[in-house]
């Protein structure tokens, strides 16, 4: 226990790094994924094609490769992120947006076609019928799959440790190297850090699911 209190500052800052990586890239992925999903169901073929291309690229590339590309690849075209943290957010958000898009698209497809038809018949344009009628109903059905995406994202933040971001996983490496005798305790602290993020999320998701459920 003494070991933990000695390193409390480190643990705290690593935890906050992991949490903010997950939250910031989660919000970015949600926004980008929503735009992509709207593109994938739009009546304009070029937009559909572009979004499909994006999704297939990022969904089928390992996240570590995306990190590599953003951190070391873009340097060759003179693009550099202001910090490793921002590079990590970009990699996580770009990658996760593809999964958000697909979850949302399944939700959009689950909204009966008559809902969008009724909206169009009233004179709402494509954007209005999507934002006021289709998406609000789609979001409700995609709470569970989006919850999965969120939990996967929270754990995927650990890849940032390999790219000089001092998150929980980086802390694991550092403390484990320096304190081989306390290995179990270090593991426990780090795992607990992730659980503190994911377990309440799982609970929050199930509450949200029940609250948003609509009767048809």
């Amino acid at each position: 226990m003494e070991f933990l209190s000695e390193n409390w500052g480190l643990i705290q800052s690593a935890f906050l790094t992991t949490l903010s990586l997950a939250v910031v890239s989660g919000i970015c992925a949600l926004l980008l994924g929503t735009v992509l999903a709207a593109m994938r169901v739009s009546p304009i073929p070029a937009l559909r094609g572009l979004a499909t291309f994006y999704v297939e690229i990022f969904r089928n590339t390992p996240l570590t490769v995306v990190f590599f590309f953003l951190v070391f690849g873009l340097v060759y075209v003179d693009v550099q992120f202001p910090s490793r943290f921002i590079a990590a957010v970009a990699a996580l958000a770009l990658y996760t947006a593809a999964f958000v898009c697909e979850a949302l698209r399944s939700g959009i497809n689950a909204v009966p076609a008559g809902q969008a038809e009724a909206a169009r018949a009233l004179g709402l344009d494509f954007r209005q019928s999507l934002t006021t009628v289709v998406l609000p109903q789609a979001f409700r059905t995609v709470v569970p799959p989006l919850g999965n995406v969120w939990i996967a994202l929270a754990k995927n933040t650990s890849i940032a440790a390999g790219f000089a971001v001092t998150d929980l996983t980086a802390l694991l490496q550092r403390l484990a190297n320096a304190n081989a005798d306390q290995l179990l305790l270090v593991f426990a602290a780090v795992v607990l850090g992730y659980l503190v993020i994911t377990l309440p999320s799982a609970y929050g998701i199930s509450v949200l699911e029940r609250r948003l459920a609509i009767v048809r």
Partner: protein
Amino acid sequence: MTSRTNGEPLVRLAGVNKWFGELHVLQDIDLAIDRGEVVVVIGPSGSGKSTLCRTINRLEAIDKGEITIDGQRLPEEGKELARLRSDVGMVFQSFNLFAHKTILENVMLGPIKVRKQSKGDAQKRARELLDRVGVGAQADKYPAQLSGGQQQRVAIARALAMDPKVMLFDEPTSALDPEMINEVLDVMTSLARDGMTMIVVTHEMGFARRAANRVVFMDGGRIVESAEPETFFTNPTSDRAKDFLSKILNH
């Protein structure tokens, strides 16, 4: 009842053709509907009557021909089309009320989003319309909490809230339990009496007799016969219409 402001019909279909793949669902349709006219479209299932109804606000695009509403040609997709659709009310077989919004919000949505009315104005009008169709007491409930007949009357109020020039009814009573059909037909009949221009796809022959100015009989994607209701029901000219009527009127 037909108060023509000019010689132009309100809705005009000329040489309209549509294919679903190999299937030629609409074949050379010519149809003109005057202001205040109530046209009932009947015919066996698969005759193209629903598709015809849905082409008039371009929920189905046509492959050949021309459709004009109030002298204006139906635009392609986009803002123009959305604007024109706002003048054409539509009532669906399956009601299609917005499931995540209350009854009141369903009726207010179009006026607020499309007509840019204030919330207060839209709400006042929505309550009037809901009272008019007899579901004012249900304003704060969600669609799933209402019976089919009530939902369909809300759907009519939602369409009326846009002050449409013409109303399309696509089999409005086909999904209803028998005891709820009349409450919907009563609302439609009173609309017809008030001079609303209506195109109604239905199997309700009683409504056709009572409220229609004209009956259009379709079969195999064509308009086979078009006549006043009394003439059509008592003295149909085509064999196909005679056969159809003998099958449905015997019961």
